[in-house]
């Protein structure tokens, strides 16, 4: 069943298109990697999927459970956050903000959801630790737990391994892969890392060409866009 369908989408700013004719379809349980050069419109597409940017043309059709506010989002970390005084528990719980609605305070169910998310990512014992004292990998896990508080159906990750050391990178990829396989969470990942994309993803969207390449990983591997020895796009 399709969760998100993009048809003839064109995106841009002030009437000027960054990318045109973007067509793709995401089904429940997919693992989609969005790759492409800087400026090809990856982050604009991401904003559009999150409902933060209105397309110049075309449409984004959202299926079951993916309306605005119900996509778990893992943004890139800002410098501002690295020394922010907050505990892992506080950060994770703030993922429930979208379900607050007209209420002012979190319910018991919200707290339980946050606890489950931390448990799922193995950071329960870090709950009272200050976020700023964590390693890069642990910080990303916390933000991933926060994204899972918003929804378990579909998560959108913006370069989740940037700034992580090789061990933490492998660990992060493994965690995301397990989420996709075990909990059937749909994963959309914006990344530069093509070798990891073809290892874990089942679909690839390569932005920048015309038309934009959207196929399965096998077809991508056989295409001319795929660099001979893996590596960076």
């Amino acid at each position: 069943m399709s969760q998100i369908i993009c048809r003839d989408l064109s995106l841009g700013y002030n009437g000027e298109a960054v990318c045109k004719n973007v067509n793709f379809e995401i089904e429940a349980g997919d693992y989609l990697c969005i790759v492409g050069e800087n400026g090809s419109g990856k982050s604009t597409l991401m904003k559009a999927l999150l409902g933060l940017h209105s397309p110049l043309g075309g449409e984004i059709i959202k299926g079951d459970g993916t309306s605005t506010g119900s996509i778990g989002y893992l943004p890139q970390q800002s410098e501002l956050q690295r020394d922010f005084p907050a505990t892992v528990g506080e950060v994770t719980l703030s993922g429930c903000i979208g379900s607050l609605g007209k209420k002012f305070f979190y319910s018991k169910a919200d707290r339980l959801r946050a606890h489950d998310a931390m448990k799922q990512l193995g950071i329960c014992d870090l709950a009272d630790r200050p976020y700023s004292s964590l390693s890069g990998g642990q910080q990303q896990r916390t933000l991933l737990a926060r994204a899972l508080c918003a929804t378990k159906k579909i998560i959108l990750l913006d370069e989740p391994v940037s700034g992580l050391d090789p061990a933490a990178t492998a660990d992060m990829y493994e965690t995301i892969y397990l989420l996709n396989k075990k909990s059937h969470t749909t994963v959309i990942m914006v990344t530069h890392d093509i070798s990891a994309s073809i290892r874990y993803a089942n679909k690839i969207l390569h932005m920048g060409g015309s038309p934009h390449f959207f196929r399965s990983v096998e077809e991508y591997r056989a295409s001319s866009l795929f660099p001979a020895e893996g590596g960076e796009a």
Partner: protein
Amino acid sequence: MKLLDTLIEYFSYDFVIYAFVVGVLVSLCSALFGVVLVLKRFSFIGDGLSHVAFGAMAIAAVIGLTNNMLVVLPITVISAILLLRAGQSTRIKGDAAIAMISVGSLAVGYLLMSVFSTSANVSGDVCSTLFGSFSILTLSKTDLWVCLVMSVVVLALFVLFYNRIFSVTFDEGFSRAAGLNATVYNLLVAVVIAVIIVLAMSLVGSLLISALVIFPALSSMRVCKSFKGVVICSAIISVVCACVGIISSILLSTPVGPTVVCADIIAFGVCFVLGSIGKLSK
């Protein structure tokens, strides 16, 4: 015992009680939103606004209003919104625009006060607007009520929107994606800060307000590592410093504003040392 007697004698006067209540409320409000201001890197708004408030005060004085609040509050709130827009804009030089507004209103304010002044002691008036001096001891009952109502509103806003404020402060992008209107909350913070600055003017004067907003937040961040902890600690530090400052200014006959700020500086020093010891012992 002599000190205690003096204190008891002073507290039998209504105006001292008023000053004390206003001092505690203002320091409480400024400490809570100060944390947000510091973490959002909005400190510049607090500083810019305090200068604007001085200019507005001068205009109010020239017009000769009995209640300054009617002029000062709207001007400061509107400036807060403008400063917020300017600070976030990437097209024009945002920080330069803020410097322009704040230094401009300082100049215009002093000019107005010296040209149209009705009192014989212009520099005295200017000094008391800038540094507070003894103006807190001349509060009327109306001032007290205005301050009480405003403080309760500000405190209620903070408590009710605590979770949303945290989310927007920590990660605006995520909050927007979760369907929160972050612009509204930024606006809320800017407007509330404007209100706090106007309230705090009578306590510490317009130039020293930033200290009241920033010091307790920075002090508590040295010792606390959770957001809730920082907020609570900041509130306690600020209220204690305000009380200590007001009482010592009465006993030592020093100007209230600078004395309160000195108490805040000492508190920051203590927290700095405690924080460093905490880090070393780990």
